[in-house]
């Protein structure tokens, strides 16, 4: 179709006019690999499918907005669940693929896909009944689209409208991770006989996205941020939270691990999934923050912590994170405390 060809051209031009970092962000979604990874993440995709398809009574005859629709899978779930109409919006040119997919699956009359920024496009409906979105990034907030979802909520969602999912919680725990810390951080102390400590500082300041085994978790997990998507404001994403981590056993703490849980409370039977170390693998894995010190903890002892997070001023999709920790014990030799700065970029 000539019309579509031109539209793709316009879309590409539009992408080129964006800030470089934004361009990079959207372009990274143009490639197949990332969509394949997300679709093949069964925990993620199946949770959304269940939340939508098992709740036909909620979706029936509703107008649904899919923010950041990608390949259109969530839009198609919603159409199959009986939605009156679904609008899928995505900035990335993947949306042209989504259109082809929607068409071959015979859902073109139920789903309208719009390429553009949520904040700039013209919506075919003044209001929608349900917003669905898979907006979560690593550490929940890194490269996340939450601000776009909030914009859509404030602009288009009916007063009693629903959001799928509507609750997100970040958890933190302390982990014993000596071997891996040695491999990732200690490695730089001796690289083929050379001192590479300049790269050690960098490695320490970059949170590591990786899988953590449950047996490595030394403390009880503690929630540090809970988002109610009906209420949260963009400004709330810069937050500070003091919390305690209580040791479950005598062990060492080399790092903090963070993950998030997602809930669809609007469902008939609430559906939730977790990206934590205690459950099935997801493409979000977990996020590890190495501490400068190794804490030696005894069962029942508390590590007083505080986590501060804010979007980077220069690139709002990057995160600046600060972790403070203090271990107070009666044994002065084990007392430790410090502040670590991290940048997710």
């Amino acid at each position, binding site marked *: 179709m000539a019309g579509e060809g031109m539209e793709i051209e316009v879309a590409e031009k539009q992408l080129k006019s964006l800030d470089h970092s934004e361009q990079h962000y959207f372009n990274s979604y143009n490639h197949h690999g990332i969509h394949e990874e997300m679709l093949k993440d069964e925990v993620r995709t199946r949770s959304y499918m269940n939340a939508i398809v098992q709740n036909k009574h909620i979706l029936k005859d509703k107008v649904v907005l899919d923010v950041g629709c990608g390949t259109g899978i969530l839009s198609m779930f919603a159409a199959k669940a009986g939605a009156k109409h679904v609008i899928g919006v995505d900035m990335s040119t993947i949306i042209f693929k989504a259109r082809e997919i929607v068409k071959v699956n015979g859902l073109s009359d139920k789903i309208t896909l719009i390429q553009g920024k949520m904040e700039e496009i013209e919506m075919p409906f003044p209001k929608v009944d349900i917003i669905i979105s898979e907006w979560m990034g690593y550490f929940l907030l890194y490269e996340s689209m939450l601000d776009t979802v909030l914009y859509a909520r404030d602009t288009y969602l009916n007063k009693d409208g629903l959001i799928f999912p509507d609750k997100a919680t970040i958890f933190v725990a302390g982990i014993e991770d000596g071997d891996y810390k040695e491999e990732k951080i200690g490695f730089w102390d001796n690289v*083929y006989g050379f001192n*590479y400590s300049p790269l050690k500082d960098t*490695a320490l300041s970059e949170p590591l996205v990786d899988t953590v085994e449950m047996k490595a978790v030394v403390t009880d997990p503690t929630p540090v941020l809970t988002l109610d998507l009906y209420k949260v404001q963009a400004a709330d994403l810069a937050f500070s939270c003091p919390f305690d981590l209580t040791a479950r056993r005598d062990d060492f703490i080399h790092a903090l691990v963070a993950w998030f849980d997602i809930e669809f409370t609007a469902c008939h039977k609430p559906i939730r999934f977790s990206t934590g170390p205690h459950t099935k693998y997801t493409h979000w894995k977990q996020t590890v923050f190495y501490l400068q010190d190794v804490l030696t903890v005894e069962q029942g002892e508390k590590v007083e912590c505080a986590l501060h997070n804010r979007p980077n001023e220069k690139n709002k999709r990057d995160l600046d994170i600060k972790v403070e920790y203090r271990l107070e014990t009666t044994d002065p030799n084990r007392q430790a405390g410090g502040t670590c700065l991290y940048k997710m970029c």
Partner: protein
Amino acid sequence: MTEAFPRSDSGSVSSSDNEEDNWLNKPGDEDDDEEQERISIVSLLDDKVFSDAPSMLAYCKDKFGFDFLAVRDRLGLDFHGCVKLINLVRKGVKSGTSLPTEITADHLADDSLLIPVLEDDALIFCLDELPELGQGQADAGAAAEGKEALAGTKAPAVDELLHKNAQMQAELEDLTKQFTNYRLAVEQTLDKRWGVDEEADKAGASKPGAVAAPADAEEPVRDDSAYYFESYDHSDIHETMIKDAVRTNAYRDFIYANKHLFAGKTVLDIGCGTGILSMFCARAGAARVIAVDNSAILDKARENVFRNGLDGVITCVRGRIEDVVLPVDAVDVIVSEWMGYCLLYEAMLPSVFFARDRYLRPDGLLVPSHASMWVAPVSDGEYVAENIDWWRDVYGFDMRAMQAGIYAEARMTVMPGDAVCGEAHAFRMLDLHTAKVEDLVFEDKWQTTLSDKVDALDGFLVWFDCFFGESREEVVEARLTAKEWAAGGRERVAFTTGPFDTATHWRQGLYLIDKTKAKEIEVGPGKKLAGEIRYSTQEGHARGLDIRVTWGLEGGDKQAQTWQLN
């Protein structure tokens, strides 16, 4: 002067809370001695880059007849004056207007000239490196002031001296502040370089503490190279490369086992990254190593070199090898890890050739010395099912639209050796001492005899071997594998990136046949396939690569498909 700089915190971790405002500045354990080396100085009048100010100014004087020092001395310029003069010249060059034939104090009256034209103009930091202001004028000024002071009575003279002293102290404070501000601007710029397009900088992304380039600055030509170099700014890619033991061990083994080739020699390391190869060479006894890289990682290389006590031997220079002016005219050895996916992706080899032709002595050595490329047929039904056919049914939806273009690109992947269903064929051997840029665009014949591993012909696998010869005269036979060569009697070093040995970070290039278009051919053990393989560069993406393979049964029709590496 260096004491005036605030020392930044020595690490990313600190127990103090008083740095709330900039608690995420990149850790930079600045060492003052290193500072002079840290920054590359861009020529006042063109794009050449120098490692110190005097040689840049000498170059400007020789090449363009512009004598900065003479103008400074003639006008008796102080620090601010020099900054203004630098910016006046840079502004002129940038806007393309010619400089006044004789620069006078009037030209430098405008205080807006204090705003740097280049955002991190290293020259401004190096002003103190320049020879002292012409003694005659300075002395004359001081003498005149002295006379004035002595003309009064004694008490007022002391007062005046005290007053002057206070004035000068205030001035010094101003200067210190000024330096601190510049320093901050540079730090911020360096910070930003870790994540932001250099071109965006050039195009005038405004920053605190620095001025935006004029809006009408020429449209930057979209050249992928900025992005290319930035992709090497981050340490994870260097971690991957250093931890690729096949790669790093090969360089280490060759260099340490052949110290006689390095002892007392001048070595050039192109694309030095974290500096590991340069440090190997220095440890092997090189008299001097020049490490060049155009990525921000060079700052880390400098720190690494310094911490390992090798800064007396290794000089780090930031810039494109084609642009930088090296502190030597010729080198004895060029060491470089330039290899990309399928050997030639990223097209760094032409830069090595440039340096070879420009700097390497006639009897000089290239490390590595040879590289060969291999192709083999592939049969792997499981891979195709998981990666291609999977799109037919995704949670009950037909997503075959996602397959479009799936065959247009090479897939970089580590394939198991038993996916290879026929003899591997070495289609090109490059002798790096003599190869030319033209040799990197080619079409070669290839052939294979299929093995009993063949179910269906799913595609082709491409990889490369790398050889470390001890002299220019060394010949590596065209079809020799790395293993065969390394086993060739003496202690020889070579490595392969192929599917039958330890995987490397280069993986292999998998070219899947588009079965929606290709004609199926009857395959089976013992059958012979033949065809051509062509490497060509892409229009509009100089670092990309197009690879075209033709194939067919011996004596039968041939078919062709082209894949891109982007």
